């Protein structure tokens, strides 16, 4: 079994995007998602593709890395679009075989859905994961959600949980690997046998893993207490987020992009059924 997952695949760099306020990047991502779903015809899709290319260019993330990230999701992209080929009914029937009918509209739709997913993944991963460290992301989220504290929602606790989870994922993965190796050395077999047998083989991994996770949690709580942690109250931060006018302009660009897409939708051409 391979547990080599690269989490929060932050990609070191110094582009405008890397230096941007994480709050603005979160807002921009949400705007971008909305814009993607506004696009309805070939013209607006062309503009979307162009904007994704511009994003890649200013992020200075190597295309190779982005492509590798996409490759992992090929199955999901193919699956959703292929379903569409069979699903959508249209006017120009291309294939008719028993209960299977494939229409030109279906194929075009499938293509656009695939494009939408790809653009969405590329856009949000560039804005949020490739150019933003997990800690900046949780900080940004905490501050964006800060107004909800009025409703007594545990915003600080939530972001602390996220930070600690992100911190401990690699540690626990490493530990799982160690326990598995130890069990393998004692003759455990995780890759053959029936499903039930394999599930049973996982028990001797999960039990020690959970025990150690609880022990770690207790030790960490003590250590945090010793470092005067008493929750979010009265806590300050070393890195204060501040949005510059550039950051606001960046968000405004996405609003403009949305407006442009709506205009282009009116130009006619093929319209997406969804």
């Amino acid at each position, binding site marked *: 079994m391979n547990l080599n997952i690269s989490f929060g695949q932050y990609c070191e760099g110094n582009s405008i995007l890397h230096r941007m306020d994480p709050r603005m990047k979160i807002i921009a991502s949400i705007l971008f998602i909305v814009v993607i779903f506004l696009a309805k015809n070939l013209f607006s899709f062309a503009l979307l593709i162009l904007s994704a290319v511009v994003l890649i260019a200013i992020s200075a993330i190597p295309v190779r890395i982005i492509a590798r990230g996409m490759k992992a999701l090929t199955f999901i992209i193919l699956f959703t679009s292929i379903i569409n080929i069979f699903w959508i009914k249209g006017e120009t029937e291309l294939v008719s075989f028993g209960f299977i009918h494939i229409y030109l509209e279906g194929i075009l739709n499938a293509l656009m859905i695939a494009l939408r997913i790809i653009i969405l993944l590329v856009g949000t991963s560039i804005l949020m994961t490739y150019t933003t460290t997990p800690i900046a992301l949780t900080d940004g989220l905490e501050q964006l959600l800060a107004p909800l504290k009025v409703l007594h929602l545990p915003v600080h606790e939530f972001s602390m949980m996220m930070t600690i989870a992100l*911190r401990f994922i690699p540690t626990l993965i490493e530990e799982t690997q160690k326990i598995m190796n130890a069990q393998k050395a004692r003759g455990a077999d995780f890759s053959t046998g029936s499903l039930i047998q394999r599930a049973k083989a996982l028990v001797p991994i999960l039990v020690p893993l959970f025990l150690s996770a609880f022990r770690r949690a207790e030790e960490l709580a003590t250590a945090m207490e010793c470092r005067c942690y008493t929750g979010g109250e009265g806590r300050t931060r070393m890195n204060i987020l501040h949005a510059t006018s550039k950051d606001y302009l960046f968000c405004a660009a996405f609003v403009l992009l949305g407006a442009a897409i709506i205009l282009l939708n009116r130009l006619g051409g093929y319209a997406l059924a969804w």
Partner: protein
Amino acid sequence: MSETKTPIIEIRDLSFAYPTDDGEAPKNALTNVNLSIEEGSFVSILGHNGSGKSTLAKMMSLILMPDSGSVWIDGKNMSAEDITEEDVLDARRKVGMVFQNPDNQIVATVVEEDVAFGPENLGLPSAEIRRRVDEALEMVGMTKYARHAPHNLSGGQKQRVAIAGIIAMRRRCIIFDESTAMLDPAGRREVMDTIERLNREENITVLHITHYMNEAVRADRVVVMDSGRILLDGTPSEVFSQPETLWNVRLDVPQTTELLYHMKKSGYNVRLDIFDPDECAEEIAAAIRSDRDAD
């Protein structure tokens, strides 16, 4: 009365037993412990497994409260009835602790963010936190790794990050509970050098709990614990010149002391309190020479 400085930590007649849940009679983890730690000193605490070292450390960092007796931090009785949450926080600003497992005390996903965690909890202004973080990383020699992810560091480096996190809070006293135990020899040396520098150069009081004798001899004072009591307390020379007492409680002595002890038993006139291998070799050579001359 003579002018004496208030000890940074003082423990008076302290006893403690962990509560048991199955109706068993609780066994004392600490019994009538008296200990006073002078500001600026470097104290090693020795004792075999289960002798109560960690329990003592947890008393001093106010994680546990004594059953009887008291813990005084900087002249304030922290076991008094009227101690508030604020007082405890205040004491924690003076005494910090570094634990055994470096993995379980690092909170953040970036080194400098973790070092900033403590000062952030103190509510300091951002610029002040920045200054302290940079200073603390410099002090432990981890400036180069400020933007790294902690899980990619070596054990010794992680432990130095944990130490920086404590230094950045400007603690006057740091307790190290077997902070070198999980490290390889190189990591152990890195951390010991850092600890020693903090004591000598920054005048931070150090309490170092360890199983390694060669680390213990670097302190000004060695406290030996056995079954929840203090057995020996003195300078390394005083403590290690009684190897039999230490062996009785299943502790080692530095290798040099052991060698010299056996020399002495076979009739050579040597001192026992030599911890440097070269000095030890000289002492033995001198003893053999004078022995031969006497013949």
